[in-house]
Structure formats: structure tokens, C-alpha cells
């Protein structure tokens, strides 16, 4: 077999995410590319948590409903996931907290034997998984040694006893892929920023964007990145504006509610032409909603947020590799055009794990903003591209003025309709330049069966599942990665020969569909989900099959 799905479940606080990651690393070390989905309610202890880890020789980017190995730290895990169990599923459970059917593991005995704490239960199950999947013990030791930060030996002892207590149920076909780094979508964004010269990251914690803050707070400062967690999201956006004014490359991150509070500052960035990157990771709304579940329901909010009209760039990557590329691109574009620039993500992408192929990571080359100073510097001097040269204080002999009011080329407030119109046109021209830039980017991705006459349309994190389902059904996938300025021509080109379109989205209103209408495409069918859970491969196939011909 070469497509293994493992579910590990228990209560919040049981270390389910760590167990999932260990399984991912074990797969990785066996030459299987892992993808992990982590499902947890918004609480610290108790409640049902589970992770699904899927490994295949090529990178999987979606999960299946059916699992091959189910690791249950408690009875709940078995009950809640009955529909994932099929005849060849190996169910391995903590015999103290659950009863079968399946293979019980005497976890408390094993822990007692090694004088280990309750938190090591998960290591025991991970060991059992390795045996069940037919992995050798030396692989287990090397992965534990590499990835367990504390009490490695004891954890390993526990794991190996777990290993010994079950049978091998699946024999993974050998795979020769070399292990790749495994990172979350948020970490990929952080890595992209680090590569493209980020100077500062400012954020207020909010699921599912927080882990980007955590990542950069840990790794940023030693690399010279200033990381600030201020009083609230209003301050976040405005601090970022300050950094940008002073010439430092800055990004912010948040989710819906926090983004609401940034919209006034966003409009300021639009008017004052300040480059700011916004990582906006969607979760189920409205309002506090389901903090730890996903959605694609803020697309139009992000498209239109902030009062007044100003150019912006929005990209929505589909997996970790793309996230790393496009976060580089987003930062570069922000500076090249002095615009707010969005990386639109969601919980599935932000907190999902993927192996990442750094050689595939692209992104536009760093060319940087137009700099150089006119004398005396006019911060908003008009130009054919609409982009003005940049300079930052202190600039000898120059004053650098930015302004949230309508202003003249020097940044001085004006109410003169002629100047106002001139500057409005300048910003519009900047948008046109940005549009031309987007034409040079891989802004639309085609997948599945390139000749398919039925096309699945999607954006963002549903990329993986759409492609896998489409491959099965011999459908084409056409996916805009850039959503603003919308790559209309490339999109229509990618649709050539298509007779039937199905738009797949995680929202109730069909937000991509609405956007496409604006560009002259009326989608034929809609497949939507809005309970915060990911489309699993089988489920999406079924939903696509249900769509009338």
C-alpha cells in the first residue's frame, strides 16, 4: 500500500498534535510525504481532539475520510470516528480508557513499568502506530531522538513497549523520496517572509494566525526581525504603518475579528501608499464563530475592506510550498507598488502541516521599490506607472510627509478638486501597473485533467482536495491564486474548452462565484461547505458526483 491515513484522537491536553507530528515525521523518514490535519475545539483541557495524518510518496494535500490506522487514547475517539473505520482499519486503543473492537494497549502498565508520566501516553500510541504500519524500530528511535525535546529515552522506552504490544497491519510500499521539511502553512509564511527580507512582524494573537506570531517571535529576533505583540489589532496595523514609513519591511497577521479592527489602518495604508503585508487567516464566522475551524467566507470582506477605493494585492496560496512562495511575492509586491498586500489563508492551511519542497519554492525575484529622491522630495510625485520613488527619514535635505487626508504630491493636505483628482488617477494608474505585474505571475493554476471539459473552480486551501477529486473524476481544476487584481485573461484562457463549471467553496454565499461573475463568468454549479470542517477527498468526490450533468 502507498497511501496511509492515520487518525490519533484523545482529549485536549493529551498531546494529540504532538502525536500527529511524530507520526508525520515517521512517515517522512520512511520516504512518505505527510500531510496533517489537526481538529480541536477552542479549549485548553478536555473536549475531543484528533489529528489525521496521511502519507503518500508524492505530497498529499488533503485528507481522506477513511483511515487505515486509528489510534484512540479514549473511547470517544472510537465512537466519534466509527464511519472512518473500514474492514482493514487497525484500531489501536489505550486499554485503560477505551475498549475495542481492535487491539488494546496496556498503556498504564507500560507507563508504570518505566516510571513515566501520563503525558507520555501519546508516545506509547505512536510506537504502536509504527509497528502497525510496518516501520522498523531503528526508525522509531532515530525519529524520537530527533524530535522529542525532553526525556527522550523514557519516551522512547514507552514507545517501544507500545510498538511491541500490537501487530503489523499495513505494509507500506518502499519509497525512496528523501525526507523533506514538514511545516505548517503559517510557518511557511514565516519562512517566506524571512527569505524576502522581513524587518518586522506585528501581531496580536488570534487563532488561526497565532502560530505565525509564535514562529516569528521565536526565530525572528535572532535574525534581526523586530517582533511586537501590542495592545490590540488597531495598534498592530498602525505600528506597521509606522515601520513602513520608516522604510522597514513589515507584515501583520490576524483573523476576521482582528482584521475588522485593522480596516481603518488599511484604508490609511491605501491613501498614504504604505507597503504593508497582511496575513489574513480565515476561520468560521460570523463573529467569534468557531475559533479553531476553517472557512473561506472573508474573501469579499478582504476585497472591499477599508473605506474609499485604493489598489491592493491579494493572493491565496493552496499549500505550504505555495505559501512560502507567495508570501515572498506579497512582500515584494507591497514594496514595488506601495500598496497593502494580502496573503489570504484559512485554518486548514495555516495550521495544516505539509512537507515542503524548497526547490519548488518560487516567488517573484526581489527587485525592490523604486527609490531615489527628487529634489525637493515629493513623496507622492506623479509618474507614468503611478508609483513614486521612495525615501525614508532621515533623508538629508528632504522632508518626507505622508498623509491620510487627500494630499498633493508633497504630502500636504489639499481640498482642491483638481489635485484630488490627479492623485486619485495616480493611484488608479498604480493599480493598472499592478495588474500588468500580475499578468507576469503564475496567478492562475490549472490542475487535474488539463483537457477536462468540466472544471472545478476553487481558491486557497481547497486546492489539494479539489485536485485530488478532479483527478479521479477526470475534471480540470482552474484556480486563481491571485484574487486582486483579478487575472481575468489568464483565468478565461485556463477555462478554454471547458463546458461546465463547478465552484467549490467553504462558505455559504459562494464568494468566489460572485467574484467570477464580476469578470463575466457565471458558474454553473456550486458545492459548498460551511461547518468549518475540511472537504475530505471521498466527500468532495461524492458531492461532485451529485452535481447534475
Amino acid at each position, binding site marked *: 500500500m502507498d497511501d496511509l491515513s492515520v487518525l490519533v484522537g484523545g482529549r485536549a491536553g493529551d498531546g494529540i498534535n504532538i502525536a500527529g507530528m511524530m507520526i508525520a515525521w515517521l512517515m517522512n523518514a520512511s520516504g512518505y510525504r505527510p500531510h496533517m490535519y489537526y481538529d480541536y475545539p477552542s479549549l485548553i483541557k478536555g473536549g475531543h481532539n484528533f489529528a489525521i495524518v496521511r502519507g503518500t510518496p508524492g505530497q498529499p494535500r488533503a485528507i481522506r475520510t477513511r483511515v487505515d490506522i486509528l489510534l484512540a487514547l479514549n473511547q470517544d475517539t472510537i465512537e466519534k470516528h466509527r464511519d472512518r473505520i473500514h474492514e482493514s482499519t487497525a484500531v489501536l486503543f489505550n486499554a485503560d480508557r477505551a475498549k475495542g473492537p481492535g487491539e488494546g494497549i496496556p498503556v498504564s502498565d507500560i507507563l508504570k513499568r518505566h516510571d513515566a508520566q501520563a503525558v507520555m501516553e501519546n508516545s506509547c500510541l505512536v510506537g504502536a502506530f509504527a509497528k502497525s504500519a510496518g516501520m522498523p524500530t531503528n526508525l522509531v528511535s532515530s525519529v524520537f531522538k530527533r524530535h522529542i525535546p525532553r526525556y527522550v529515552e523514557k519516551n522512547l522506552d514507552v514507545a517501544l513497549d507500545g510498538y511491541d504490544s500490537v501487530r503489523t497491519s499495513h505494509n507500506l510500499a518502499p519509497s525512496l523520496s528523501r525526507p523533506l*521539511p514538514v511545516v505548517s502553512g503559517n510557518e511557511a509564511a514565516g519562512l517566506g517572509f524571512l527569505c524576502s527580507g522581513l524587518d518586522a512582524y506585528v501581531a496580536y494573537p488570534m487563532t488561526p494566525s497565532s502560530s505565525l506570531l509564535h514562529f516569528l517571535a521565536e526565530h525572528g529576533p535572532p*535574525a534581526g526581525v523586530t517582533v511586537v505583540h501590542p495592545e490590540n489589532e488597531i495598534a498592530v496595523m*498602525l505600528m506597521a504603518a509606522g515601520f513602513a514609513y520608516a522604510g522597514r519591511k513589515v507584515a501583520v497577521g490576524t483573523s476576521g475579528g482582528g482584521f475588522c479592527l485593522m480596516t481603518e489602518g488599511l484604508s490609511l495604508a491605501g491613501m498614504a501608499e504604505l507597503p504593508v503585508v497582511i496575513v489574513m487567516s480565515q476561520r468560521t464566522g460570523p463573529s467569534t464563530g468557531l475559533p479553531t475551524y476553517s472557512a473561506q467566507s472573508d474573501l469579499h470582506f478582504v476585497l472591499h475592506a477599508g473605506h474609499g477605493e485604493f489598489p491592493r494585492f491579494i493572493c491565496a496560496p493552496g499549500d505550504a510550498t505555495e505559501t512560502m512562495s507567495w508570501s515572498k511575492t506579497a512582500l515584494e509586491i507591497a514594496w514595488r507598488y506601495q500598496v497593502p498586500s494580502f496573503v489570504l489563508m484559512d485554518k486548514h492551511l495555516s495550521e495544516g502541516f505539509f512537507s515542503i519542497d524548497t526547490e519548488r519554492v518560487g516567488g517573484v525575484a526581489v527587485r525592490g521599490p523604486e527609490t531615489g529622491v527628487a529634489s525637493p522630495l515629493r513623496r507622492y510625485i506623479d509618474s507614468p506607472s503611478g508609483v513614486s520613488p521612495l525615501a525614508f527619514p*532621515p533623508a538629508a535635505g528632504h*522632508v518626507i510627509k505622508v498623509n491620510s487626508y487627500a494630499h498633493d504630491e508633497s504630502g500636504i493636505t489639499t481640498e482642491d478638486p483638481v489635485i484630488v483628482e490627479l492623485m486619485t488617477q495616480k493611484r488608479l494608474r498604480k493599480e493598472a501597473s499592478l495588474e500588468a505585474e500580475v499578468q507576469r505571475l503564475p496567478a492562475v493554476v490549472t490542475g487535474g485533467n488539463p483537457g477536462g471539459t468540466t472544471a472545478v473552480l476553487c481558491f486557497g486551501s481547497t486546492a489539494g482536495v479539489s485536485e485530488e477529486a478532479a483527478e479521479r473524476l477526470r475534471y480540470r481544476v482552474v484556480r486563481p491564486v491571485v484574487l486582486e487584481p483579478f487575472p481575468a485573461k489568464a483565468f478565461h484562457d485556463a477555462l478554454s474548452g471547458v463546458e461546465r463549471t463547478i465552484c467549490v467553496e467553504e462558505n455559504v454565499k459562494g464568494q468566489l462565484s460572485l467574484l467570477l461573475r464580476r469578470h463575466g463568468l457565471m458558474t454553473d454549479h456550486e458545492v459548498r461547505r460551511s461547518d468549518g470542517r475540511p472537504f475530505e477527498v471521498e466527500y468532495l468526490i461524492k458531492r461532485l458526483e451529485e452535481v447534475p450533468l
Partner: protein
Amino acid sequence: MTSRDFISEVQNTWCPGCGNFAIQHTMKKVFMELEGEGVVPESLVLVTGIGCHAKIADYFNLNSFYTLHGRTLPVATGIKLANRDLTVICHAGDGDALAEGLDHLIFAAKRNIDLTVILHDNRVYGLTTGQYTPTSPIGFKGRSTPHGTTEFPLNPLRLMLASGATFVARGYTRRMPLLKSLVKAALTHRGFAFIDVLQVCASYANLTDYYEKRVYELKGHDTGSYEDATMIAGEWDYYSDSPIGLGLIYQKEGPIYEPTPEKEVLWGSRKDLVMHVLDSRT
């Protein structure tokens, strides 16, 4: 930019008699003095809110960031963190910094970020034609409270003291020499400096007579004592009849805000760091 004209050529539209002129004039004198002492004007950055006070951004021929109503502090903080060599000055309004964006003011004080806030405290929303602000006296009849407010004013000095500000002073637009010395001291203070400038608003809150009868210059108290400062700050409650002390109220040295204690770049290059992280994830 040697020997320069600090005042820009933009037409000034403050009302005749407005206290903002005094603030502008005072700032100019301090800037000139600082220039004489070797501070390059290009290293000065003015950050303003939105309101009458904020027009000072246009009126000075200096770097400026004309922000949003209430948002001087976070912008100024970003600028200062981006470049520690800049001297960052917030010109904020009382509506601006004490209502819309009070949170930021308190956090700037808490962090002891090295910048100066000049509060143009005219005790009214000037630009939006006369509504009450957090420092308006109780009973103030503004356009949003034509029947008179029923709220006591905030005491910004006490708030700043309670928030950890390391330089707290009160000025008055009709006492310019004192104001000048306070601004100079604030700009040279290392850390967060706050001056509550009682600013006459000629059009909506002309308290000149009220102030003239009550203001006096503070002398001889221990500016290093938090308790004394709290008492002095409370002598006048911003509405009733009591003397109004002007001058430096509190000053102390404290560590300046740095987001992280790390000082040096540990990684030779970003690439090394990225490689290290990726490596640890296989």
C-alpha cells in the same frame, strides 16, 4: 538641510487667537535650539492625529506622518522601533489621544517608548465643531451634549502617572517660556514624555479667563516622587475652582522599550537561519 525655514509655506487656517499658534511657535524655537546643538532637522518626525492640532503636520517643513484620529502613538511607536535614531514627536488632540485612542497612550507610557507626546488639550473637539472631550468640565454644553454633560473629566496627568510614564508635565499656551522649557526637556528625556498642554480654543472653549486666574508655576517639589506627583496632579480636577500647577510634575529614568531582549543578530545570514529551521523540521 542647514539653516532652514522650519515653517512651511502652507496657508495656516487656525482661528485667530487659537492656542495652537503658541504651540507651533514654541516647537519651532525648540527645534531651532536643537539644531544649534547638532540635531539634524531631518531626524525629527512629527506624528499627528486628526483635528485642529494635527494641522501642525502641514505647517512644519519637517518629516511628518499625518495619521488617523486617535492613532498617533502606535504609528510613532512603529517609527521609533524602525529607527532608534529618529526623534519622534506626537502632536495629539485631547479627543484624539484620550478618547478615540486612549489605549495606545497608556501602552506607550507602560512601555516607556522613547518619544514625546504633546497633548493639545483644548478640552473640546475643535475640528468637528465643538463636542465634549474626556477633559471637558462637567456640565459642558457641546453639540453632542446641548443639555450639558454629566461626566466628570479625566485627569490625564494622573492617568499617565498610573500608566508608568517617566516624564509628566503640564504646560499652557499662554505661558510660552515655560512651555518651551518643558518641550525641550521632554525631547531630551530618554523615555516616554508626556506634556498636557492647556490650549486655548478661541472658537469653542475659550477658557483663557478661567486659566489666567488659576495657573501658577510649580516649584520646589520632588519631581522624582511618585506620591508627590500624584498629589500635585490631583490638585486641580479639570473642572472645579482650584489652583492649576504648571511645570514638570514627574520625571524618572527607566529602561527604554525594546520588543525583545536579544540585541544581536545570531545568524550570519537569513539563509542560514532558514536552512536551520527547515533542517530541524525533517
